[in-house]
């Protein structure tokens, strides 16, 4: 690809003059898009602002400045919602194009601030004093509503993580780092059931053609939670064989999803989980001590896998 490529395509008659004019403006750099730069700045702005506000509202409680800042926060929040409800296109079961390039960040800001205010109210006035977990559930449903109303994938992700946390399943970077997903015993079973239920619901919604483009996000979280849960179960309990079967079942499902959704991320999860599972299985049963056999095993299994992927390369291609 060089600067002359569009002209070459034009001369070969592969693109029209009209298309060439449009493309050439972009590839020659006459007009430069700063879409991604501005969006990244917005993301950073929302990140910093909500993080700062999240701390700020719990400080100097009772002072006049504190009350004023809470009022300002509520006004800003109402401003966000006023803007998005006024400008939002009507609800649709399909993907909706946002009215402006920054619309979804206003929605995000509004939703996050709302949760901050809700948290503050709970802290000050204990609206839901008996059941602290309930507020997580309320948060989750609020996020789900916003996600569906404004067709917002990022908030859908937040909704799913909040719902998972209601069941004490934590999906956050700190947890990825420490590998500490499940705080209490038998939570891996909850995780497995949770992920299966979420996957089923999302498939049902997909079948009814409600927000089909959300299905990937649901399935992605389900797959992650499921595999982590099943692998944890395999490592800690006496019932490892059951969990191994679960992993294989999950892999079969993920393999099918990869083909259906043309998203090979599921294939990656399936491969890694199946590999961990099978290796554990072999270590528990036949291959106990001999290190040479382990080397042969890794050569044969991975070599075979590479051969399989390359052999069926058309099957694993995004071209339909």
């Amino acid at each position: 690809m060089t600067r002359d490529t569009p002209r070459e395509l034009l001369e070969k008659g592969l693109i029209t003059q009209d298309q060439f004019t449009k493309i050439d403006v972009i590839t020659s750099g006459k007009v430069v898009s700063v879409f991604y730069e501005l969006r990244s700045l917005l993301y950073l702005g929302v990140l910093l602002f909500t993080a700062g506000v999240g701390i700020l509202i719990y400080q100097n409680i009772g002072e006049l400045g504190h009350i004023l800042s809470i009022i300002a926060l509520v006004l800003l929040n109402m401003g966000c919602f006023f803007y998005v409800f006024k400008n939002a296109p009507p609800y649709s079961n399909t993907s909706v194009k946002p009215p402006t390039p920054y619309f979804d960040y206003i929605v995000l800001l509004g939703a996050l601030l709302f949760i901050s205010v809700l948290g503050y109210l709970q802290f000050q006035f204990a609206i839901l004093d008996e059941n602290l977990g309930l507020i997580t559930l309320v948060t989750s449903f609020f996020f789900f509503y916003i996600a569906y109303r404004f067709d917002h994938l990022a908030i859908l992700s937040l909704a799913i993580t909040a719902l998972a946390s209601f069941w004490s399943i934590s999906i956050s970077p700190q947890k990825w780092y420490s590998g500490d997903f499940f705080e209490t015993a038998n939570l891996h079973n909850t995780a497995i059931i949770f992920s299966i239920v979420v996957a089923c619901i999302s498939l049902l919604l997909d079948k009814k053609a409600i927000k089909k483009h959300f299905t990937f996000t649901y399935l992605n979280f389900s797959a992650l939670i499921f595999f982590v849960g099943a692998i944890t179960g395999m490592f800690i309990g006496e019932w490892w064989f059951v969990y191994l079967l679960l992993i294989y079942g999950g892999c079969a499902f993920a393999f099918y999803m990869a083909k259906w959704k043309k998203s090979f991320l599921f294939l990656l999860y399936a491969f890694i989980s199946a590999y961990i599972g099978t290796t554990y299985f072999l270590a528990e049963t036949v291959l106990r001590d001999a290190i040479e056999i382990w080397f042969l095993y890794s050569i044969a299994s991975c070599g075979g896998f590479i051969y399989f992927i390359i052999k069926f390369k058309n099957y694993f291609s995004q071209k339909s």
Partner: protein
Amino acid sequence: MKSAYNETGLYNLAVVKEAKRWSNQDLIEETQLATIRETYTSPFYHPNFIIRVLLFVATLLALSGVSGFLGLMISNMGEDVFPFACLLYGLVSFIFLEKIFIGNNHHFKSGVTEGMLYHACGFTIVGLVWMADFDTHFVLLTCFVVFSFTAFRYLDLLTTIAAILSFAGILFYTCYDAGGIFQQIIPFVFIIAFGVLYAVVKKMKARKAFQFWSLNLLILEGLSLLFIYVAGNYLVVRELSVELMDLYLEEGQDIPFAFIFYGLTVIIPAAYLYFGIKNKDIVLLRVSLIVIAFSVFTFKYYFSLGHPEITLTLAGAILLGITLLLFNYLKTIRHGFTRENHLAEKWGNLNLQAFIVSQTLGGNQAVASEQVETGGGGTFGGGGSTDSF
């Protein structure tokens, strides 16, 4: 010298990739894309990104088996053999990669090639430096030569980064070991060296002969700009001086020529931004955004008012304000800039963005809760008030 790949194939692949982006943005029709695909065929096996990751992981696992096996075979031959064995194994891996995967099976950045490549680099370098008893200079030099070679021959991007880092390492240690005045002028040596590199890369980018290395050159360009900035940044210079050159600073003392570095910390980002806008240079623009953030951090680090939450809130509010103003300002094309999305970037994928948001923004309330949490259900920050104070 040329790259290891067939040039017509590379060109055709690049055209098809670009045409795909046009088609994604509805600049051309699906049928036109299909015709372009048929006209510009390439023999390469170049799967999509996830499959590449998958193949990469599998290749490394398989190769670790091979290495372990060979290691067992030579394990009783004595220590003297190991360096030569490593080197030989590394070189054989290169030949294997070149002949079998690239030559016969037309792999192009397929995951398997990257796996083989890094594996080959690793063993070649370890073998060579082992022979020289891990002398720092020799290690850096070997890394630089091997990584530059692979970056050039296999158009690889990670080894491009590794090569430029080894180059910076060589520069640094040469000046550092020379001692005296040379230690003092390290920042200026860096600024000049990477300034020259930047100018050369800019020239090379315009030449058609280097078209297949355009991504490597892009990385060189960006990293050169970053190095120029980092070398002049006050925080970096001060901390490295204290850390490595046994500079002892009393309360109220400052590093030599502090005003120069304060100046550079402000001027370089401003210059990047100015020339980025003036020349419509997206690389300069992007680097300028990163270094502006780091400059702000530098000044906050030494002149902090002690209220991080107010800083965060204000910074966020200012950023949001400026960005929204810019979005409105660029509603129509001004000075050759537009807010509309021209061509989708690979990493601009919406699903990826959503995942990043869920992993970073949800935790914003956790900050408050972690400070005072006494236990209870605070498992996830997005819940906000699951914490019991």
